[in-house]
């Protein structure tokens, strides 16, 4: 049961307990974390689940996959080296303590 910390644009943070094997997006949505819209429900269709992975964890989380890589060029908030679509990040116990930053805008 990894714990994930979402840092919100207003400076507050949300700490949620997630389930291993589920998507990072799901952890946000199930806990009502504001700013993760996830309009397509995790289908890699909408890019409204964009997050910035904290630098200390980018290596552990890994790079975006092929389709995701292309989609990240067109997110609403600027793309950074740490950008991921949270529906494409699978959580595991190895990611316990993961910190991600929620961008200002998704749509």
């Amino acid at each position, binding site marked *: 049961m990894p714990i994930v910390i979402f840092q919100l644009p207003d400076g507050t943070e949300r700490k949620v307990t997630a389930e291993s094997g589920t998507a990072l997006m799901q952890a946000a949505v199930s806990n*009502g974390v504001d700013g993760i819209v996830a309009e*397509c429900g995790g*289908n*890699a*269709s*909408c890019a409204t689940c964009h997050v910035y992975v904290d630098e200390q964890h980018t290596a552990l989380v890994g790079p975006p996959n092929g*389709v995701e890589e292309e989609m990240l060029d067109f997110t609403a908030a600027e793309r950074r080296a740490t950008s991921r679509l949270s529906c494409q990040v699978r959580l595991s116990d190895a990611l316990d303590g993961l910190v991600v930053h929620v961008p200002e805008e998704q749509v």
Partner: protein
Amino acid sequence: MTSAAGVVVVGGGQAGYSVVSALRGAGYDGPVTVFADERHLPYQRPPLSKQAHTEPDGTRVELVPESFYRERAIGLRLGERVTALDTAARTVVTGTGTRVPYDHLVLATGARNRRLPVPGAGLDGVHALRSLDDALAIGRALTTARDVVVVGGGFIGLELAQVAVAGGARVTVLELAGRLLSRAVSPQLQEHLRQRHEHSGVRILTGTGVRAVEGAGRVERVVTDRGVLPADLVVYGIGAAPRDELARDAGLAVDDGVIVDEHLRSVTDPRISAVGDCARHPHPHAAGLVRLESVQNATDQGALVGRRIAGSAAPYRSLPWFWSDQGAVKLQIAGLRTDTDEVRVVPGDSPDRLAAYAFRGDRLVAAETLNWPAEHLAARRLLERQVPVSAGDLTGSTLGALARARRGAGVRA
């Protein structure tokens, strides 16, 4: 901002959820009540036709867990139907006779499937697909079905056909029109999609109507105007009609959907809004009023009304977009492709990719893409920001390249 009666939402689907989530997100602190006549927590419909669902608990299609509503003091009245509106007294009446007052009423009642208008449509093994309960019944039937007949070559039917064929069934799609998705996508894509479906083993019979469904208690065969097909499961998706009867009975203007203005308020009663599948609304990209059935439309309209009730004043202008996953084909549409003059089909950067760009005059108004999410997103960025794109701009280029170039030039596209 707070007022005594607060907001009542009729319908606990994609749009109803979006209304209440936006209301609380924007700081509205009055009473909020949602009447939802299904027994399930508000859920997403797209997965219902894209996977086989067999386990009520394993489906995980709900939009957010129950705690979301509890923590935000949103009264979720599951299994309770609103049966009448009393607009003079500003109350809704529920099936149990309870009367609940409102300051603002939001109709988010969705749509219902058109019934299959042939003899035998009521036999066991004949299903429509709209609700989670429908999907569970179909999912159970698919575990044993050998001959599946899908009536209607629209998005839902084609998606379900792919689910059934992947599960090992023999699948036939019957479509009355001469082409699949005849009004929904450009003709050039219709033919392409047909080939993709046939290649994956789905038999497609266009120009073929259903006359009857037959069997002793359970479906055994489908009689078409071109012969008889064996069937142990029939799923039909032949279009939907808005659930606008509450509004009509209450005397609100209705014409295949509740008629609303650019703020999504009923043109008859400004205390009542309508959002999602049940709303017919003006749109800056359309000549007349439109009624759209999509997650985007339900989400963005719900959010607009939630924010408006909480105090913001912007009119509805969101760019329509849509997706449909048909087996290995991911179809995405950005923009409204009605009244287009020209469609140009362009191969993508890999063999399974394709784009169809639709123009009104010399201006891009919509883009349909296959297996090319980045091109779809680029289309949305450009169309949302009203960047003019002509057919000439797309000669030897893609929307992705145009959007990247704009971004590179320091203009956020």
